């Protein structure tokens, strides 16, 4: 990305293997990648089945929901904010979509559209309160989390809404060739996010606000609009994740996605994005999400007690952050 070769003076010594390595290690993606490789190798050693194509595709399919949530989360965290509502918004979007189809007998397309609108609407709500209301993001989205979760439970009476048209399952378990649909969706969403962040003025403004909001504002960036947009994006990715989850579960689950916001934040942070904003890469988040997924998968394959798994994951996140800090 950086055209360093155009500015390098001819007196530069020829590149040694060492300098190539140094360059690779200087990338912010290096550390998450190393983590991913180390964990994969360990898992491969512990379980014969781990490196099979079907298991790897399965891992990717399993991580897709959290990975998609983490895209919106990356945008929000890059501006220096946070969005705790994504898990609850996802549940509400799925519940409303299913409810409109099953309980109200509406066409499936209307239900899916309504689900997306729920995500966009709650993202807009968060964004307006954070950007123009000048309230702390952590409080606003905590409140939205409660509101969305409560609305989903009220609407559904607390029970999953099943009986969806069978083709909805394509979003959750369908395949194109051997590639699961959620994996394709995830890849597309990450590509779009990368383009937005690195090829558009909007992306630059996102990084600028996280780097120094006052300077961005004074130099003429419309900071409020950009902040609104990142929360809307987060709501949108929550709704898209809901679509995949609903397809997989074949029902609208008001209790789905509890704690997913924390997994999404963990993916972002494991991917090397600064929690204070301004620095980070979207593909780091993808690596972070896959890393978490591999841990889940591998620990399951090894037959480790699920309660213990949470403890192990917690310590691995701490370790990763510690190494990441010492590295810089």
């Amino acid at each position, binding site marked *: 990305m*950086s*055209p*360093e070769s155009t*500015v390098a003076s001819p007196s530069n010594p020829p590149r040694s293997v060492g300098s190539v390595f140094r360059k690779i290690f200087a990338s912010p993606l290096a550390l998450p990648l190393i983590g991913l490789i180390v964990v994969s190798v360990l898992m491969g050693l512990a379980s014969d089945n781990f490196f099979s194509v079907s298991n790897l595709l399965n891992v990717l399919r399993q991580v897709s929901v959290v990975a998609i949530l983490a895209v919106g989360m990356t945008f929000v965290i890059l501006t220096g904010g946070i969005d705790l509502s994504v898990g609850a918004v996802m549940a509400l979007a799925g519940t409303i979509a299913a409810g409109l189809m099953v309980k109200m007998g509406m066409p499936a397309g209307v239900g899916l559209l309504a689900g997306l609108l729920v995500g966009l609407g709650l993202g807009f709500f968060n964004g307006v309160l954070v950007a123009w209301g000048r309230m702390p993001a952590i409080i606003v989205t905590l409140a939205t989390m409660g509101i969305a979760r409560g609305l989903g439970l009220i609407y559904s009476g607390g029970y999953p809404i099943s009986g969806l048209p069978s083709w909805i399952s394509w979003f959750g378990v369908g395949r194109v060739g051997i590639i699961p649909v959620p994996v394709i969706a995830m890849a597309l969403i990450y590509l779009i996010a990368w*383009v937005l962040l690195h*090829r*558009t*003025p909007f992306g*630059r*403004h996102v*990084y*600028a606000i*996280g*780097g*120094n909001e*006052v*300077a*961005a*504002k*004074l*130099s*003429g*960036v*419309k900071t*409020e609009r950009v902040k609104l947009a990142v929360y809307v994006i987060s709501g949108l990715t929550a709704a898209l994740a809901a679509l995949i989850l609903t397809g997989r579960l074949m029902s609208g689950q008001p209790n789905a996605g509890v704690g997913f916001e924390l997994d999404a934040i963990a993916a972002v942070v494991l991917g090397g994005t600064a929690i204070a904003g*301004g*620095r980070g890469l979207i593909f780091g988040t993808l690596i972070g999400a896959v890393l978490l997924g591999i841990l889940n998968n591998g620990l399951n394959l090894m037959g480790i007690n699920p309660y213990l798994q949470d403890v192990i994951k917690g310590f691995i996140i701490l370790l990763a952050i510690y190494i990441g800090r010492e590295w810089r």
Partner: protein
Amino acid sequence: MLRLEGIRKRFGPVEVLRGVDLEVKAGEIHALLGENGAGKSTLMKILCGILTPTAGTIRINGEEQHFADYDQATAAGIGIVFQEFSLIPYLTPVENMFLAREMTTKLGFLDRTAMRKRAQEILAQLDVDLPLDVPVRRLSVAEQQFVEIAKALSLNARILVLDEPTATLTPSETEHLFKVMRELRKQGVAIIFISHHLEEIFEICDRITVLRDGEFVGDSDVADIDNDRLVEMMVGRRIENSFPPKPALLPQAKILLECEEVQLRRGGPISSFQLREGEILGFAGLVGSGRTETALAMLGAYPAVRCKVKVDGQETRFREPADGLAHGIGLLPENRKEEGLITSFPILQNISINNYAKYRKNMWFIDMQKELASSEAAMKSVRVKAPNSHTRVDNLSGGNQQKVVIARWLNHSMKVLIFDEPTRGIDVGAKSEIYQLMRDFTAKGDAIIMISSELPEVIGMSDRVCVFRSGGIVATVEGDAITSEGIMTHATTGKARNVA
């Protein structure tokens, strides 16, 4: 009392200090001088244990010292007041002074009376009167500085380092600080004083030491030296006149920007001013007199009670700086690091950040080749000294950082630039370059509003000067009427038009 010999410091391949000597006696105010980047701050960080020298010795009263950290230096009697204060804004002066070494009663609770008594003793020793029960954020900059000094003294500091203490003080506050410094000198404290204001050196200091590019240039008694010689020692060449010549203003110059009514506070004065093409309009006045606020209010970045602005004769209302940008009006803030630059960005993106309209492709995307070419051209036109445009801005000197901000706005076709303290914290050489850039800008018929606390700068650069006092403009002077006496008189005794 204090003797530094042959201090060297190397950061990787760069040697920032190359054998520096410094000798300070008890009861002496010793100026440490040099342009930005000369190594003053590094030397002071070594003195107070934040950095360890690569070579050289530190002796206090003849005894060699090796400070592993700040606490050891403090224990050896060294106190430092940094440019950026290290006070906790929500704590009171007393709580700040005894932070992390609170006095306790026998039961382990805070002994508030004892701490308060000790604080009062120290402040009395400084002959300073401060409110002790309000959080320090409510105090003026000068008062906060006194708290810092008192904090250092409460640690029995015998060597006190003041790093550019006067940069943000008004003249009367500076006077008060000098009084305190003289009092400390009488008590035998050695003071190392860093300042860019040479007239202050002659007013208060006994001796000077000059550094240039990390090297010891020389030391001298203040009595044996004059201003020109001092500047020459600092920059290594004589600077005859750092201000570019003022061009003659057209009598019929068009009015670019007209501020008809600005009122910052309810019941405060209402001001108006006009900005004509090709001129530099100085905003002079004491710190806190409303200069910066007026400029920000115009751009919609400060909530003024009312603010009527006409651009090219058309009434306009700016809700945020982005609206100003759309009308060709830009601001270069006073605090470059906090308000001007996005420090996580390289030079390139700091220049292009508000200019994406210029390099779009396919409607929505950034044309990265154009961005690079245009930003590098802007960077070259202001002569930013950096390896390349991908250099991070936080590694640049103050002067180069300011040039990056200037490049950002020159990259636009702006009509009006507002420079807030354009050369604060910038060394002499870069200063004259920035003055020349400002004149180049106005030569094209564009105009500048220059907010400045430095009178020589106001006088040397402005075609007209608006003098501010307590929230409004009290006088506008022009041509030969721009004198330091005139401006200071208006700034300190002028009467603003008050409207209820």
